[in-house]
């Protein structure tokens, strides 16, 4: 299972990119999209929303389930991936690239270090599988 080393991960299966000017990109992992099955719809937050780490900010739906996506860090939403409205399958096909969900201006960039690294996240996936 693909778990890129350059990213950080939350236990709830969100990935977080390296920050660029204090802004990170967030999506769900290859493991998560596989568990969900074919994604049919994504409910994204609004640009400008202020979110706290742990808040449910998005919903990814498959035919039989709907999964909450949680903000991995505290900050403000700066962008959402509008392309997912007509092509939700990008989350399945390219969860780390075209399937990104939203970008977040992080209040405290150092907090990213508190998230799981690739090895720790791999262990979480093995536990759940």
């Amino acid at each position, binding site marked *: 299972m693909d778990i890129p080393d350059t990213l950080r991960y939350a236990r709830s299966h969100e990935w977080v990119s390296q920050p660029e000017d204090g802004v990170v990109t967030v999506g769900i992992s290859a493991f998560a999209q596989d568990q969900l099955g074919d994604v*049919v*719809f994504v*409910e994204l937050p609004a640009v400008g929303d202020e979110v706290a780490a742990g808040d449910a900010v998005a919903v990814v*739906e*498959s035919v*039989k*389930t*709907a999964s909450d996506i949680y903000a991995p860090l505290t900050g403000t939403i700066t962008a959402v991936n509008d392309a997912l409205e007509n092509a939700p399958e990008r989350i399945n096909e390219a969860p780390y690239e075209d399937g990104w969900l939203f970008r977040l201006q992080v209040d405290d960039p150092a907090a990213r270090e508190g998230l799981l690294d690739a090895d720790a996240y791999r262990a979480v996936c093995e536990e759940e599988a």
Partner: protein
Amino acid sequence: MRYAPHTEEDVRRALDAIGAASVGELFADVPAELLDPELDLPEPMDEVALMDHLQALAARDDARSPSFLGGGVRRHFLPAVTRHLAMQSEFVTAYTPYQPEVSQGVLQATFEYQTIMSELTGLPVSNASMYDGASAVAEAALLAMRATRRDRIVVSRGVHPESREVLETYLHALDAEIVVVDLDDLATPVPGDLDGAAALIVQNPNHLGRLETMDALADAAHAAGALFVSVVDPLSLAILRTPGEVGADIAVGEGQPLGVPLQYGGPHFGFMVVTEALVRQLPGRLVGETRDVDGRRGFVLTLQAREQHIRRGKAKSNICSNHQLAALMATVNVAALGPHGLREMAEGTVRNAHALADRLEGEGYEVVRSGPFFAEFPMRVSRDPRALRRDLQRAGVRAGLPLPPEYGLGDAVLITATELTRPADVDALLAALRAVGERPEEVAHG
């Protein structure tokens, strides 16, 4: 017993297979003090006694005399073919179509229903029906609150009083604010204050039967960032300007006039039709078209992730069932009548209602008219409306739906006509009014 087929032999065979000595043993987990209470219920009746009993009850009901009652549900022509087709046992004794391969009957009929409601309202997406018009109004308010993230609802007093009561019941627990807009000259004026409103809800025709000018109201709602909810009579949409044409975001209403028997108030069905933008917020079931593995067209329940069995605490609504069989009957009926028949019924209703109003005015009664109306109109009366309705019932006519004091008309009733209203019925109404002492000169001095 009655419908369980088990003989003593069956029970013995089953207990042997299970490894239990008695049926009582199967209830061993139920604490003894709770088991087998004395139930004070009448002795069971066989089928003959049952029907005798029910017929005796029904004999004390008036299901026959001329009726001038409306207020959202009315007696319209319901052809025999409608009832026979809708009540086929495969439709009646089917469950929710969760296994679509063996449920194409219900699923396709629902897809046809959704299409019909979309055509009538001029909006693109209908759900598979709801409990009734009143609860559909409440659900529309909840939808608007979710979509706009606001908690203020502005509603016209022209919306049926029972719908407004249900709206209050539903919203009361959510700390939402409901503001009622008074009618002016029997119609809804453009409200002064729509700031922060999630929705403006207006009914057309309104509870007093009057047609409303919806375009200006829709514009005012949108200017304030609110959704416009149009509560409509589905039969009237055979001829009237549609919610889609006036710019509504949501159309809801009571479906009974499209072809469901009166049944003392239910089951009927509510409908909700919305714009594309609101599809994901729509409560209730939805049927969509798709293909099977061989490329054959088929239908499935879709977008189920909105619903309670998946979203649970975060569902759009707790609604689980729809009023499938009632909506099916309406679907069959609309197809039985076709667009021409539906239009003729609507036109017949308008003509008979206007002719009745003219006749009553001609006899000196005080019909309250300020503009065009569809099936009904208010009439002032000389006594408490409930007393009048009772007196008219005793005189052999079902008429005099009481209008509440909030409309500022004094003692007044709603008089309704449909395409079924015959001259002899109108004569009977006039005779009954005179017989109970409801004479025009009484009203003028009343």
